[in-house]
């Protein structure tokens, strides 16, 4: 009993932190660029595919973890510069059509190049096996994922909260014109935020790709969960996204203990309740968006 609870808690926190990596990018992109990025799941999937190719060709998980997210970042630059940048200031609802277009385009390209079958990313030898944590034996790789995603989220939080760049980012989200008038190239900040979100999604793709399978449906599967998290946390709120990601991770993993078929019910039920009580999410701005 205690063993399964500890196991579920560890799993919940770990999947919550991974979800936070994806949701953080999504919420930052929305908060600053006012873009509802449906392609975010596709970027996550792309990270997993790039990772699986690099891991297979170069035989190194670590190189895959390093290079794949950067390649996803390059794709992110292309999307931002060639399609989003000319469209800022236009009706943002059309960004849904745009990013949805990219999502199915990337998914189609992935199937075209690598086929429809699932692929694998081999876990590094260093991280195989299990570690005894007293009550439970837990896979080392999962502990590694937990540690690295927590460190990354912590780093991002510090960067947003403390660094100059973070201040510029938050200021641009608050009042783009004023920041522009102060002589800061907001256009570059926008590109940076989008690419940063893409890199985080790519990282999550490699990390999860090595513990789950890499398949063309993974992007569309995760995007809706990420949206739920972002909305529960409050659109544009970073700490809201992290908090909601942990909440959803734990609810899902405890839910799997109690009633595995009803975890979706818990996910969407939770969002419905939160939004009916707090229509702008837990950490959202009080003014309706």
């Amino acid at each position, binding site marked *: 009993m205690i063993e399964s609870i500890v196991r579920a808690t560890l799993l919940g926190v770990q999947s919550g932190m991974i979800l936070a990596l994806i949701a953080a990018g999504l919420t930052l992109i929305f908060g600053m660029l006012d873009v509802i990025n449906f392609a975010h799941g596709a970027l996550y999937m792309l990270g997993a595919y790039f990772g699986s190719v690099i891991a297979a060709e170069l035989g190194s998980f670590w190189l895959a973890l390093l290079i794949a997210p950067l390649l996803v970042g390059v794709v992110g630059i292309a999307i931002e510069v060639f399609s989003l940048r000319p469209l800022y200031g236009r009706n943002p609802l059309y960004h849904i059509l745009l990013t949805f277009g990219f999502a199915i385009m990337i998914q189609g390209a992935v199937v075209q190049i690598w086929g429809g079958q699932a692929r694998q990313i081999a876990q590094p030898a260093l991280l195989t096996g299990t570690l005894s944590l007293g009550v439970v034996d837990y896979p080392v790789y999962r502990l590694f994922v937990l540690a690295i995603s927590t460190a990354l989220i912590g780093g991002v939080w510090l960067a947003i909260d403390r660094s100059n760049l973070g201040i510029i980012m938050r200021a641009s989200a608050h009042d783009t014109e004023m920041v522009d008038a102060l002589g800061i190239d907001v256009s570059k900040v926008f590109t940076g935020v989008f690419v940063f979100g893409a890199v985080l999604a790519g990282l999550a793709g490699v990390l999860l790709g090595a513990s789950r399978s890499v398949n063309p449906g993974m992007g569309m599967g995760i995007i809706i969960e990420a949206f739920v998290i972002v*909305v529960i946390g409050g659109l544009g709120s970073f700490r809201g996204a992290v908090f909601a990601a942990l909440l959803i991770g734990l609810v899902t993993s405890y839910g799997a203990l109690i009633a595995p078929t009803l975890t979706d019910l818990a996910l969407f039920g939770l969002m419905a309740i939160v939004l009916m009580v707090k229509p702008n999410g837990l950490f959202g701005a009080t003014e309706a968006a």
Partner: protein
Amino acid sequence: MMPVFELLRDDDEARTGNQILSRPGRILLAVGILGLAAAGPIAGSIQPFWVNLLVRMLAFALLALSLDFVFGYAGLLSFGHAAMYGAGGYTAALLVGQVTPNALVVLPASVLVGVVVAALIGWLSVRARGIYFAMLTLAFAQLLYVVVFTDLPATIAGAETVTGGDNGLYGIGSYELAGVGFGDPLAYYFLTLALVALSLAGLIRLANSPFGRVIQGVRENEDRIEFIGYNVQRYKVIAFAISGGFAGLAGGLYVPFQSVANPGLLHWTVSGELVVMVLLGGMGTLWGPMVGAGLVVFLEDRLGGVASWEVILGTLFVLVVIFAPRGIAGALISLRDDPSGAVDSVKEALKNYVREVRD
């Protein structure tokens, strides 16, 4: 953070609103419907399969029409229209399978169920605005999806099966009306076309009615409409319920024709695709989203055999957003207003695009 719907109000000029509802517009629509009526038998004589495709295009056009009424006119972005569509579809499946194939009983029931589901979802969701409203409708639609997928009604009622769970319901017969069967695809096509045309006519009238003006006012400036003394929440719920009725009708038309009802009808990807169809067609024009939906269904079917059809469809969406920001309807309207300027405006759009990218 720039509120999404604040920006929506900024481009009043760009909205393609009421233009097609003018007299020439209505005549053009009537001609289009007569053209479709003629197209059915012609397509059927070339290749019977084409009639099948036409019926599916019409069903999705009706669904897109229902979404545009609430999205384009009332400004309520619904991300849960699959709920009403699926509810109407399952209603038709259960009634045709177990009660009666009479279209005069089943189709109104599908509409009614759509209205009830939409009224409930709308009533629970209107507290939130903008994207939060969209996400609430998504949540309730997904809850309904889980209910159907896990066959919760059967568990509660103690029956063996109600919704058929994961597999759905199979072998649903076609409609009958006054002793005439609609088993023939062409007959079904005419039934569908007639109902779609009636729905379009009804919604155009409604959009131009005082009620329609109020909900457009809600879209433009919710607070002002409230100050004038209208009960904004109630208007939103009513608009959502009306839209849900038409979505239910679309489900009721689609399911007996396919003779299958599965949980996939209610999945969020249907709602998502629908929003994309409306935007592609040009929201707020009623006819544009219908064209958009028909085009997407057509392309998905025709390109299905091509290896990279998703890449082609995705590229189309991206290009439309960049070069035809008001969708297909917007592009057609500016072409009608200024046919000679078409080449120039394409050049202008390209120049603007290059400048913005460099900037």
